[in-house]
């Protein structure tokens, strides 16, 4: 069965990738100046305290031994304990990663809702005023620093109009959605700009394709032509880009999370890097890598569904 073999192959490919990432992140965090202990203890730490705590954390052992412990724990599914927060890393990830996933998912959805119709509009009226206006607007969205857009949205839709909460995450699913809307929109703006650009040119490439002409020659409705013949083919190239962008978003929502006070994985990651919380950085990196790979796999599957030619 080709689908199963396709998925299996992708999962097998994931192994070398993960091993590579495992090594890189392990080395990288240890190359960072300072160690967890002085990062946590801060300026007041006395040498004796630092030494004692390092010993307690096992940081005085050789790197090889530490790596061995790390690899072993990864394979047993135990990612260790956070040095600063003193809770299991898996627990932290389980708490924070879903938030980022929800945020990213919403951003992706909003981006699609914004980009797809407007890409159609721009493509079908290419060269005209509507096209220019749409592309211009998205360009502005693409060129604005995230923290700036975020603050403006917060001020306008949060503080001034009161339509959305000013940051935070809320309680309960509906409330989460309500809270995450503005940050998701912020993330979505640049994503949708990228998608819009790509989809627009894909549509332009497709609307004049012979098979669309042929579909028109069949006398079927314009709506059917756009949705079944144009969109589906135009999406094929966009889907890959979309997957890639979502992958980037998953690991890169830090600033948005900070501005909107969303307790997501991005912030946890940055806090942990700053806090030299090795186990958290390592664990989270692995988790993100797996998640991103799964995203890629899903987009590939979607692409394969859209385009029967790629499924071998």
């Amino acid at each position, binding site marked *: 069965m080709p689908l199963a073999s396709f998925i299996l192959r992708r999962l097998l490919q994931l192994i070398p990738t993960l091993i590579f990432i495992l090594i890189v992140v392990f080395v990288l965090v240890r190359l960072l100046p300072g160690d967890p202990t002085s990062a946590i203890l801060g300026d007041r730490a006395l040498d004796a305290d630092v030494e004692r705590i390092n010993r307690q954390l096992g940081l005085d052992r050789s790197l090889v031994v530490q790596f061995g412990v790390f690899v072993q724990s990864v394979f047993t599914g135990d990612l260790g304990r956070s040095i600063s927060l003193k809770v299991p890393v898996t627990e932290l990830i389980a708490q924070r990663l879903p938030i980022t996933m929800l945020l990213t998912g919403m951003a992706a959805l909003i981006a699609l809702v914004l980009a797809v119709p407007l890409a159609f509009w721009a493509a079908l009226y290419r060269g005209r005023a509507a096209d220019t206006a749409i592309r211009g607007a998205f360009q502005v969205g693409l060129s604005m620093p995230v923290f700036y857009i975020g603050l403006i949205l917060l001020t306008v839709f949060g503080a001034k109009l009161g339509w959305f909460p000013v940051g935070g995450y809320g309680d309960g699913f509906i409330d989460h959605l309500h809270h995450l809307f503005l940050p998701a929109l912020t993330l979505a703006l640049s994503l949708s700009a990228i998608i819009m650009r790509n989809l627009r040119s894909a549509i332009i490439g497709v609307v*004049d394709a012979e098979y669309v*002409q042929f579909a028109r*020659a*069949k*006398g079927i409705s314009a709506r059917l032509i756009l949705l079944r*013949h144009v969109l589906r083919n135009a999406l094929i190239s966009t889907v890959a880009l979309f997957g890639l962008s979502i992958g980037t978003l998953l690991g890169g929502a830090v600033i948005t999370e900070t501005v909107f006070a969303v307790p997501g994985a991005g912030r946890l990651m940055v806090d942990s890097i700053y806090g030299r919380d090795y186990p958290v950085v390592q664990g989270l990196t692995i988790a993100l890598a797996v998640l991103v790979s799964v995203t890629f796999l899903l987009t590939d599957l979607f692409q394969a569904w859209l385009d029967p030619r790629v499924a071998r």
Partner: protein
Amino acid sequence: MKTVLDVRNLTTRFAGPSGALVAVNDVSFSLGEREILGLVGESGSGKSVTLRSLIRLLPSMAGQSGEVIWQGRDILNMSPKDLKAVRGGQISMIFQEPTTALNPVLPIGLQIDENLRAHTKLTHRERLIRARELMDLVGIPEAARRLSEYPHQFSGGMKQRAMIAIALASNPRLLLADEPTTALDVTIQDQILKLILDLRDELAMSVIFVTHDLGVVAATCDRMAVMYAGRIVETGTVADVFAQPMHAYTRGLLGSVPRVGTERSPLMSIEGTPPSLSAIPQGCAFHPRCDFATEICRATQPDTKMLAAEHQVACHNSLAVVKTGSPVR
């Protein structure tokens, strides 16, 4: 013979970034019932645009004028709704490249079904049955399995057959075939041409057959029209034109084809290249390449004259052409 299609002064322009371009220039012809008209000409001469203009299958920046009278109604003035019924319904089209003309991401069955849905009142089940019949009709075995396959799983000849099946789904009265065999091998071309001939007989269709292969015209068409630079320069029955071309261009074309007995001798080629439609020479568009050209050819565009029964030509010097005799011995 009853005339089903009457094209009068059809002109199609494209507004491009580098100025307007007349792709089809004042083309008139008519087509009888069950007749196969061959439209020949070299690449870029406007064959495809002519064909597509008949059913207004043109990009929005194209402008059309003239009349295309189909069963008493001018297609060029039809409402979009009526046009939709004509397109794919009464008039179907098959394209040159089966690989690009079939949507790569939709199963063949769905692509046939689309047409059935648009033009028949059949139920889902009936459409399925009809689709299988159509696959049988065009000679694709194992129809049931093939219907759920995608174009890339078909060979070139199969794809062309599938496209014909789609075109025939609605029992069209007129089939527009735009170089349906150019991309195919001779043995497959042979099969497809014969399929079209058979279908014409069975379904009593008329066919306009675009090609640049004179052999195909000779083997399949009743009448032919030769296009050059957006105009029809010569029309006549296939037998007449092959026996005695009256336009210097037609004569040149016939002479360019290698013939038995002349092996390894120079061919009677036409010097130069066909003009770009955005830079058509003044006067007769063919004059820079024409051995018969005179002053008048450089100055004025020749009108179409009826020189023999059903044999029309747009050439100032057709008499001189006729006098040199046929290139075909």
